[in-house]
């Protein structure tokens, strides 16, 4: 057995394994399937019932024009073959329709509540409560807000129409809209910002800067890669050198330590990791050690922690006590709701409310999105924004006031 010694070997093994699957030629078929589907829709339920009982024929035209088929036994006994119908494999094998309305449609039908108390950028505008600030750069391209500071936000933007040249910037935007451009990072503006627990310093790539002035406080010998969190117990980052992408703990002045596994940490040192089929709530200790606060081994993994870390919400909207793991309630969301699938971004707005960004996946390019607020106590949900629209595939919600205690349950 060859040991996997580097990333290249992972690629090789994946490629080898992928090579074991037979690939049919779809060209010329997908369009026909589309026409067949429209025809079936016009015929309505009669066709649907007939299709569900028909002998399924998987028909793919080969590259050389050959046609071959693979019969699949019907699930129900003694179906009447219908030679005129060749329903798609998935239409026949999937007999259970998605429960509940499409999530975006559900969100559109919710009562309108107060605007979300969160900061985010969409369509080149930074929203922060009642404030609307124009972001620099070209809205169509990468620009965003990545962290809240006591005086504003850490932002990133591009000012060119294409990405052929490096024209990305990181900066600090104050609440009056003024911008301090930070020194030009070699790797371009990315989501690599972190702010120190006392909000005095920001860090990205190889720079540590004064968070208020942008003055360079330290120029590190190496780019530290992606910074996950800057906690009182140290900085968590991903070492990207050689494509290793390993999570490391680093206290400035000490040697970085490679951490076991990987987890998403936040600035208070709490994080959610995954392993062994379970999601785990973890707390960062001194020296890069990690204490497991709770294992949660249900199919519905933990998605986010409340501000105090005493509750968690799962992908499907269950509220779970931490560290007890007891189910406290559930959000009144559709059955097919999942942070693993539908909502693009989420944030505990305060101790009792969770915000979700829900896009309309039927749209392409400038996707309509809605922010929805769900109560972690009553489960009720409401719209917390007008319909937003952006080229970006998701928007990132940030707490409005990072210094204020946001959870009364501590």
């Amino acid at each position, binding site marked *: 057995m060859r040991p996997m010694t580097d990333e290249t070997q992972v690629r090789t093994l994946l490629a080898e394994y992928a090579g074991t699957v037979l*690939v049919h030629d779809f*060209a010329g078929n997908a369009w026909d399937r589309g026409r067949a589907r429209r025809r079936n829709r016009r015929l309505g339920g009669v066709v649907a019932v007939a299709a569900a009982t028909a002998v399924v024929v998987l028909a793919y035209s080969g590259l050389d024009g050959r046609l071959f088929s693979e019969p699949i036994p019907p699930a129900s006994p003694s179906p009447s073959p219908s030679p005129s119908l060749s329903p798609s*494999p998935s239409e026949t094998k999937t007999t259970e329709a998605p429960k509940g309305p499409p999530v975006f449609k559900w969100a559109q039908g919710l009562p309108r509540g107060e605007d979300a108390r969160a900061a985010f950028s969409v369509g080149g505008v930074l929203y922060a409560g009642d404030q609307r600030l124009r972001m620099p750069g070209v809205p169509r391209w990468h620009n965003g807000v990545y962290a809240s500071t006591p005086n504003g936000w850490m932002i990133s933007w591009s000012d060119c129409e294409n990405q052929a040249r490096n024209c990305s910037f990181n900066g600090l935007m104050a609440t009056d809209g003024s911008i301090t451009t930070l020194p030009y990072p070699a790797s371009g503006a990315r*989501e690599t910002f972190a702010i120190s627990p006392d909000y005095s310093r920001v860090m990205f790539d190889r720079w540590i800067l004064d968070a208020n002035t942008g003055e360079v406080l330290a120029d590190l010998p190496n780019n530290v890669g992606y910074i996950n969190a800057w906690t009182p117990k140290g900085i968590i980052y991903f070492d990207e050198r050689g494509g290793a992408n390993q999570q490391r703990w680093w206290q400035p002045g000490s040697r970085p330590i*490679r951490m076991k596994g990987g987890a998403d940490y936040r600035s208070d040192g709490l994080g959610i990791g995954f392993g062994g089929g379970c999601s785990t709530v973890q707390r960062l200790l001194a020296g890069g050690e990690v204490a497991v606060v709770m294992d949660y081994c249900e199919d519905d993994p933990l998605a986010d922690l409340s501000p105090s870390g005493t509750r968690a919400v799962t992908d499907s909207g269950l509220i779970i006590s931490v560290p007890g793991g007891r189910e406290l309630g559930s959000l009144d969301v559709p059955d097919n709701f999942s942070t*693993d699938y539908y909502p693009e971004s989420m944030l505990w707005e305060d101790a009792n409310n969770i915000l979700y960004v829900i896009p309309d996946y039927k749209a392409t390019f400038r996707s309509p999105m809605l922010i929805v607020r769900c109560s972690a106590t009553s489960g009720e949900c409401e719209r917390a924004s007008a319909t937003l629209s952006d080229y970006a595939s998701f928007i990132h919600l940030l707490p409005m006031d990072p210094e204020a205690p946001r959870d009364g349950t501590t």
Partner: protein
Amino acid sequence: MDAQGRESFDAWVRSCQVSLVRSAFLMTGDSHHSQDLVQEALVKVAARWEKLRAENPDGYARRIIYRDHISWWRRKLAVPVDELPERSLGDPSEASVDSLVIGQALARLTKKQRAVLVLRYFDDLTEKQVAEILGVSVGTVKSQSSAALARLRQVAPEVAAFGSDGETHD
């Protein structure tokens, strides 16, 4: 779609179908389901071809494949799709031992971890591209990737040497 559009669509399908099916297979572990997912995705791409052809149809198709897979799985929780059916591997005697190991190991990752690995290391997409397809942040891509590699080391001792480059770096 006019004749010219259909011609360009067919050309695009031929250029990417092998990659799409193999990606879907690595995500699902099921050859039949992967074919279904790709066909569904191609139907959706075809419906939007006039707009997509000038943009990024590959990324759109991969996003559809991933989301349809998750959606399908959520409706079929009772079906252990994570268990790799033997038919996916064809004749085991023809599959290399490494492929068997990686197949079994992939089956023990979460769906998101598996998708991240496939998109990052099989499709060779950047972390930002992976994040856009999965609808998550770059940080999530990194943490899921790291967790997935750690999980691979855990569940497949044969590959335990992966990523072990020492405890510290300069």
